[in-house]
């Protein structure tokens, strides 16, 4: 960087460890909720212990059967989904999935979904002291449900009060996952920080549509779905940057990350960690490849710790001549 002679850093010596509040991650690469099952479904092809962490499919109090087909549509460089939070519900998750997660030894972040603050309180009350769970991601941003979705939660005061009610229920990390389809994602992130969140994930999918011209109707079962994949990366990267500049708690970047270079961009604009989602549908081991690629890329740049890279482009508005390295403000150590 800046024409300085690079230190030589052996690939194996690169330190990838980061922290999201009380949550210690061996590396900054997590799976995104809804793309890796409940943590064990890909365990026969992916060493899940080598990932930074696994974020489960969103759990709700009761099982949900999800939306009618079509649920998936491929678009240019992306995919729309309208799954509708289909999940096995809290009871089956506790009975069947938690024992497997304990045995797996992975760092497991459980995604929780609720239509009201009270529902989230109930979920966290029941799971908050579970030792197999390293943290919780609160899904404040599902675009595909009629109640308790992204619109409902896009109110700063509601987010702040909800976080404040949830905070006493667990000592584990509480992470708020936000929707990009809002007037100011920075305002929402600040509200979560005020309420006591340990981190913010920026961001969930973008609301999108696709029309079947032959049958003249939506190609999805509902009118709209959530767009993910490389098509949204520049958009989500900007949201991540905006959030990183708005809060002091760590930010987890998410949106169209397909390889280590994408991850480096997110980390540079202020993310402490990243989530890999759609890429896993292409290659189940995508997140693991990104861990390997990240280590190699940092070593090649002479950077011994990912924390040196974190937020190098976060401190100032990103304009001409602003590529200077600035100290990270994020609490990632």
């Amino acid at each position, binding site marked *: 960087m800046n024409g300085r002679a690079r230190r030589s850093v052996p690939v194996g010596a690169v330190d990838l460890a980061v922290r999201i509040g009380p949550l210690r991650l061996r590396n900054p690469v997590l799976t995104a909720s809804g793309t890796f099952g409940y943590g064990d479904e890909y365990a*026969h092809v992916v060493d899940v212990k080598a990932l930074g962490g696994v974020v489960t499919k969103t759990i709700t109090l009761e099982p949900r059967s999800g939306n009618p*087909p079509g649920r998936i549509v491929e678009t240019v460089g992306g995919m729309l989904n309208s799954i509708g939070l289909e999940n096995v519900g809290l009871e089956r998750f506790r009975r069947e999935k938690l024992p497997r997660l304990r045995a797996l030894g992975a760092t497991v972040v459980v995604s929780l979904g609720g239509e009201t603050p009270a529902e989230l309180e109930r979920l966290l009350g029941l799971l908050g002291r579970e030792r197999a769970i390293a943290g919780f991601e609160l899904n404040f941003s599902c675009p595909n449900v009629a109640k308790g979705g992204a619109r409902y939660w896009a109110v700063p005061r509601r987010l702040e009060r909800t976080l404040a009610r949830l905070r006493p229920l667990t000592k584990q990390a509480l992470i708020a996952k936000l929707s990009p389809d809002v007037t100011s994602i920075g305002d929402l992130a600040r509200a979560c920080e005020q309420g006591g969140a340990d981190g913010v994930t920026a961001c969930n999918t973008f609301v999108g549509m696709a029309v079947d011209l032959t049958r003249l109707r939506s190609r999805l079962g509902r009118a709209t779905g959530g767009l993910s994949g490389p098509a949204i990366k520049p958009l989500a990267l900007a949201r991540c940057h905006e959030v990183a500049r708005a809060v002091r708690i760590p930010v987890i970047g998410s949106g169209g990350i397909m390889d280590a270079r994408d991850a480096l961009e997110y980390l540079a604009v202020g993310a402490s960690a990243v989530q890999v989602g759609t890429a*896993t549908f292409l290659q189940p081991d995508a997140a693991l490849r990104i861990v390997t690629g990240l280590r190699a890329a940092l070593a090649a740049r002479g950077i011994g710790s990912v924390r040196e890279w974190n937020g190098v482009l976060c401190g100032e508005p990103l304009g001409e001549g602003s590529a200077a390295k600035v100290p990270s403000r994020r609490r990632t150590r």
Partner: protein
Amino acid sequence: MSAARPVWRQSRARVVRQDDHGAGHRWLELEVKPPFAPPRPGQFVQLRLPSVANPVLLPRPMSVASVARSRGALRLGFLYAPIGLGTRALAGLGAGSEVELLGPLGRGFPLDHSGTPVLLAGGRGVAPMLFAADVLARRTRSGRAPRPAVLLFGARGRAQLVGLEDAHRRLATLGGRLHVCTEDGSAGPRGNVVQLLERVTPGLAGPLVLHACGPHTMLRAVALWSLEHGVPAFLAMESMMACGTGVCRGCPLPRSARARAAYDPVSAPSLHGNREWAMCCTEGPVFAAEDLDWEHIS
């Protein structure tokens, strides 16, 4: 049952050959090495092109049309029509090119089911049915109860009877019988496969069991016929998919009222569907006729 772990693998495969198969279709052969397990008829793989040649995002589910073993590797055959961006790019790959595979995925045809098997194919749906005929013939030769392969092959017209010569050749080698029909009467009797089935059935030793692959309109007709006549039938369904492994929950098919009533959320694997929806990728793609709500399948 819920403890059963998936056996599919993520693997690289090499194009061994690829050529025209008539009526705008391609025949593709891939070589893949262990631990990739041999697929069974009705199972599928998720095929993804190497990044440099890939104009699409998601992998494509491809039904397996043949399996052969060669020097410790598996040789998998596929029949497809290059109609979209992804399949057109696939058609451009020559021998030696690499692709990525996930598989084998889903549940295939229950060829051990009691009864005389009748295979029904519509258009390029013939691919897995020829594979099923191969397997049935092998079982017959290995001394199990004789199961003469009977294949009913229908399409709009002669041109859409994809790989008809290949079907004739393979059925002849296997000692099976091939009956064809077309909606325009350009080959075989005029009509659809259900009408052909009614015509052929009296000559077959009953009871029968049907295995079918083709467009959903054909499968619905076969399913309704089977339910009406009390003949077990197994249908290979299609759906848009993202992952192909039960994780994304993207390929639901509606369960019949009977299947919803029988659904047990405790013992049913979580990678399968739920009370309302069956996942095409893990529970299927082959379904028993009585398990789906045919009125609500498009």
